């Protein structure tokens, strides 16, 4: 069979545009996974050992909250806090589906009650208040429950006098909660003011993708900003910008390396080095907790 060059690229483009969660890539038997970027077929167990980074092209697959925690936090040390805080459809919001139904579907799909899992754990022995966002739950969007869990995580860090770390992955505010989702930006940022005032360190780890209201609040207010390679990080989404300015965007625009170049992140760290980098930072701050 022959295909034209045009079709070849068309197909490739389509492939790239699909969702990036690894679960979706599984080829029957869950034994083999195909890399979205380079198309290489990877043995599942190898991918797992490589912390879900393609051994060939270094593509960093998006992680679920539980994968993130298990890759970062010392085994057996994580204790979840506020696990029962969940979103509710207080506006009776209906778009193509009722919000209440969307929440149920998201819970089924992600196996999580909300976007973010928060708790306390240790990273190479250092106690931290840690939160991991899961993009597979409604695009990691921030509604009242996410805002509340993030705020309570910061309050926990303040109370325990331990550094806070959030792994962000979010499309921004959750429109189905209207203005209340916007108010979560104010709430979480105010809570960070208190951490700052009390000299409690806060580290942002920006992962693919972090945009909108999440970036414009707690994801950009760290003492230290770390980003995973090639993560999309920005305020407005690339499509919105393209439509506004009617220009093509420069190569690498809004990617981690671009942000580093423009002074918005301290370190672009490959996933395999992340725990080491975090350990060095935690050791610098030297907070032992109370």
């Amino acid at each position: 069979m022959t295909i034209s060059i045009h079709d070849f690229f068309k197909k490739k483009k389509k492939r790239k545009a699909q969702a990036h969660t690894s679960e979706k890539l599984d080829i029957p038997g869950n034994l083999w996974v195909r890399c979205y970027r380079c198309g290489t077929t990877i043995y599942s167990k190898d991918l797992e050992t490589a912390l879900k980074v393609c051994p060939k092209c270094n593509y960093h697959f998006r992680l679920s909250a539980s994968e993130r925690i298990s890759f970062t936090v010392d085994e057996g040390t994580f204790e979840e806090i506020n696990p029962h805080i969940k979103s509710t459809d207080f506006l009776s919001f209906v778009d193509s589906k009722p919000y209440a139904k969307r929440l149920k579907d998201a819970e089924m799909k992600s196996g999580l009650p909300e976007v973010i899992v928060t708790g306390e754990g240790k990273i190479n022995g250092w106690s931290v208040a840690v939160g991991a966002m899961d993009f597979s739950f409604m695009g990691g969007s921030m509604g009242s429950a996410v805002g509340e869990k993030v705020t309570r995580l910061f309050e926990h860090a303040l109370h325990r006098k331990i550094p806070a770390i959030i792994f962000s992955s979010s499309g921004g505010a959750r429109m189905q909660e209207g203005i209340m989702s916007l108010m979560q930006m104010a709430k979480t940022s105010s809570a960070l003011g208190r951490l700052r005032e009390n000299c409690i360190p806060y580290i942002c780890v920006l992962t693919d993708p972090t945009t909108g209201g999440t970036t414009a609040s707690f994801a950009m207010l760290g003492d230290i900003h770390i980003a995973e390679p090639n993560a999309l990080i920005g305020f407005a989404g690339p499509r919105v910008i393209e439509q506004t300015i009617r220009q093509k965007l420069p190569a690498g625009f809004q990617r981690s390396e671009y942000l580093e170049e423009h002074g918005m992140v301290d370190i672009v760290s490959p996933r395999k080095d992340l725990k080491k980098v975090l350990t060095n930072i935690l050791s610098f701050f030297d907070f032992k907790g109370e």
Partner: protein
Amino acid sequence: MELDYKSLLPFEKPIAELYKKIEDLQKMARHGKINLEEETKLIQKRIQKTRRELFAELTPLQTVQVARHMGRPTTLDYIGQIFEGFVELRGDRNFSNDPAMICGIGKLDDLSCVVVGHQKGKNTKENIARNFGMAQPEGYRKALRVMRVADRFGKPIISFVDTPGAYPGIGAEERGQAEAIAKNLRAMAELHVPFITIITGEGGSGGALGIGMGNKVMMLEFSIYSVISPEGCASILFRDATKASLAAEAMKITAKDLLKLGVIDEIIKEPIGGAHQDTKLTAQNIKKAILTNLKPLMHMTSRELIADRYNKFRKMGIFENG
């Protein structure tokens, strides 16, 4: 009487028809020498009545149209009416001066105040110069710089919100639009001085909140405050930008709805037919609301002010737990 059809919105069609009648009468009066004053007065009364009725029950999308009306008074219009001796302060001291954000100092009666606010234009040319009221990171950084002047010298801050949103552009991203807004949110929570926010037109998402964390947040009657524009929400969630009306309805973006949700503290009345019918009266209403709300704040210590603001936003959110 000047008949300004252009300023009428689509839903004001019944008013346009009445204007047309007056015009016809005036023509007749010019040709024949009959006196039609009585009739004209009657029609004018009907115009007022129709307007009152129309504006008594605007749909959310109609409210959006009023909030975006080209003739709607801008921040500078209100500053001119409310403050004496206004001095504009420009520039973020880092990169540039953003004309989409107005900052300055002035006197509210005897009280020295710091003022910040988005600035839209009144025509295409002005709007291009003001970037349609969409601020760049420099705008937010300028606002923060000037708010910190207030903070240091113990002066109250009044912010006027009227923006479709923070500007989504290449430069804005490169220079940290998200960081600039985020930093303002954190900093506003820590201000030691009384802080009042008035949403006068469009309260567009993070771009609005970026200067909008007052101890008291008020909205003009026909302004809107929303996490995303109804068109944006429609195209993402409803996959159809023409469903803006549904999106506007669903998101609860009007002053009435937001007061019910506890996101704002007060609604400031507008003249019948909207703020653009009478800038002076609207400004008077705003001034009254500022003075009334400032009074108790002026008696609070800086610690109480910070706690008051913190608790206000800490409480926001509706969720389940259990």
